[in-house]
């Protein structure tokens, strides 16, 4: 089978545009928020939350079958058109949000009293969610394809409701983050100094963690766990490798995230590759390019430093300054 052409993608854009928009918006939102995630050294948090969201979706499929197995099977037998959700309560996105917010509580909880680190609790959430999703996936044969799409991000087409939710989340959460980005940087960089100066550190951290949970949950439902994890880590790393100006880091991460989502989708269509994996690979290629560029710049700076004659150094003005000898008692 010959690979699809760009013209075919363009000709069928009406079918794929929702998925492309969702990928671009999710990439932009997670790219921006991901800067905080990377700087606060909690990259595995988004992975654990994405896994928790996937478990939530799996549960939303499995619980109705558990409660009413005959009705659920009859629904499937009647075909996709007749297969309706038994109740709005079993809407997968609600379960994804609930599971994500539960996982987010791990950030807010203080694990020191349990003599554990936050990373170990995140590992626990990741493993429980991953194992749970696979086990439950094994029980729900009818929706196994949907679940695989969520876990590995192979959703070619995005439901309109998911696009609306991702759009709403992007507008609201990105708006909040644009307003609070300096405050969030301050409380992440120097939390004690921020608290002393009267910054609402707990509220700001709560906003960050809840926004990460919501963004990851909604985007995971639309795109899958793998690209969501990728979008919340790789664009921020790329931006940090490219520039050291904090404002530009956020701008660049947003652009790289959006580009990874859209370009990854287009490449996956052209080369007939899995969507989520291709979006992740696109982000990884951009990061590799940024790291190589960083390496070249660092080597150039080293060469310049070596070529500077020592005589250009300022004279030691303080050499004649009498400094009293110090006695460090403690």
């Amino acid at each position, binding site marked *: 089978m010959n690979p699809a052409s760009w013209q075919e993608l363009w000709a069928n854009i009406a079918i794929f545009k929702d998925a492309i928009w969702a990928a671009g918006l999710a990439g932009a939102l997670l790219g921006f928020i991901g800067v905080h995630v990377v700087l606060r050294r909690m990259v595995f948090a988004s992975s654990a939350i994405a896994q928790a969201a996937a478990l939530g979706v799996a549960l939303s499929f499995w619980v109705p079958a558990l409660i009413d197995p005959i009705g659920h099977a009859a629904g499937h037998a009647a075909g996709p058109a007749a297969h309706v959700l038994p109740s709005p309560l079993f809407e997968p996105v609600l379960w994804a949000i609930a599971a994500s917010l539960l996982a987010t509580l791990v950030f807010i909880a203080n694990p020191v009293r349990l003599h554990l680190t936050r990373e170990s609790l995140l590992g626990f959430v990741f493993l429980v969610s991953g194992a749970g999703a696979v086990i439950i996936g094994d029980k729900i044969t009818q929706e196994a394809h949907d679940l695989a799409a969520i876990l590995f991000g192979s959703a070619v087409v995005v439901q309109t409701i998911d696009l609306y939710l991702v759009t709403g989340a992007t507008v609201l959460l990105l708006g909040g983050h644009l*307003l609070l980005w300096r405050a969030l940087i301050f409380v992440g960089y*120097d939390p004690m100094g921020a608290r*002393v100066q*009267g*910054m*609402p550190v707990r509220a*700001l951290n709560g906003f960050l963690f809840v926004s990460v949970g919501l963004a990851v949950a909604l985007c995971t439902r639309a795109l899958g766990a793998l690209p969501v994890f990728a979008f919340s880590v790789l664009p921020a790393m790329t931006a940090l490798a490219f520039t050291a100006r904090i404002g530009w880091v956020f701008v660049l991460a947003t652009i790289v995230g959006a580009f990874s989502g859209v370009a990854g989708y287009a490449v996956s269509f052209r080369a007939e590759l899995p969507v989520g994996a291709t979006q992740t690979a696109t982000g990884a290629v951009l990061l590799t390019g940024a790291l190589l560029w960083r390496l070249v710049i660092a080597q150039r700076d080293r060469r310049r430093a070596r070529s500077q004659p020592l005589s250009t150094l300022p004279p030691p003005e303080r050499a004649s300054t009498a400094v009293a000898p110090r006695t460090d008692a403690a």
Partner: protein
Amino acid sequence: MLHADALTVGYDGVAILPPFRFTIGAGELWAIIGPNGAGKSTFVRTALGLARPIAGAIERRPGLRLAYVPQQSALDTIFPISVIDFVLMGLQGSGNVTLTRRSAHLGAARRALEEAGAAAFARRQLRDLSGGQRQRVLMARALATDADLICLDEPTNALDAASEQEILTLIDRLRSRRGAAVVMVTHLVEDGLERADRALLLDRDHGVALAAPSAAMRAAPEFQHIYGRFVARHGHSG
């Protein structure tokens, strides 16, 4: 400015030091001294209102503005923070959380940098500076806060002698020009007592929490017990 009576500090509901009292007045320099693990950080957190006292109470003057200068090692070098952006953080607070009008505050940040002798590296990354330069920038942020009481956590830690003198001079300037009270946690007991008006000696292991004028501290039996052999060795028996 700040007064505590029968204050007991600790954590998880457990006191780590005996009750003590102190009063920090405007323009005073306090040296917080004591061995490692003495409870200095717990005291500072309590004094700054970040931790609740186990017993007793701290009274702060209404409207008292506080600032905290962390140890350099507490600042994560992964953050790409420019010097000017770091000093601008000093202008954020409960009344200005978002700092949306950054340009309106640039003048105050630049003045603080000039006062700290750090204006030349305003556009550089904080993580790329030497220890002495970075400490001056940290002091600049404290200046920018215009706080009434500034708490410095080991401000001369890991600095060479010249940089240390520069920082101590800046601390003196904070007090003399701005009338700010300064609380300085330090491991340099001799320097701390020499410069400070008053000292607070803490030692969890020996159950010591003693506030006294610096001149009187050297003669205190508790001080002699903890530091006597060091002071005698260096010939500063006071």
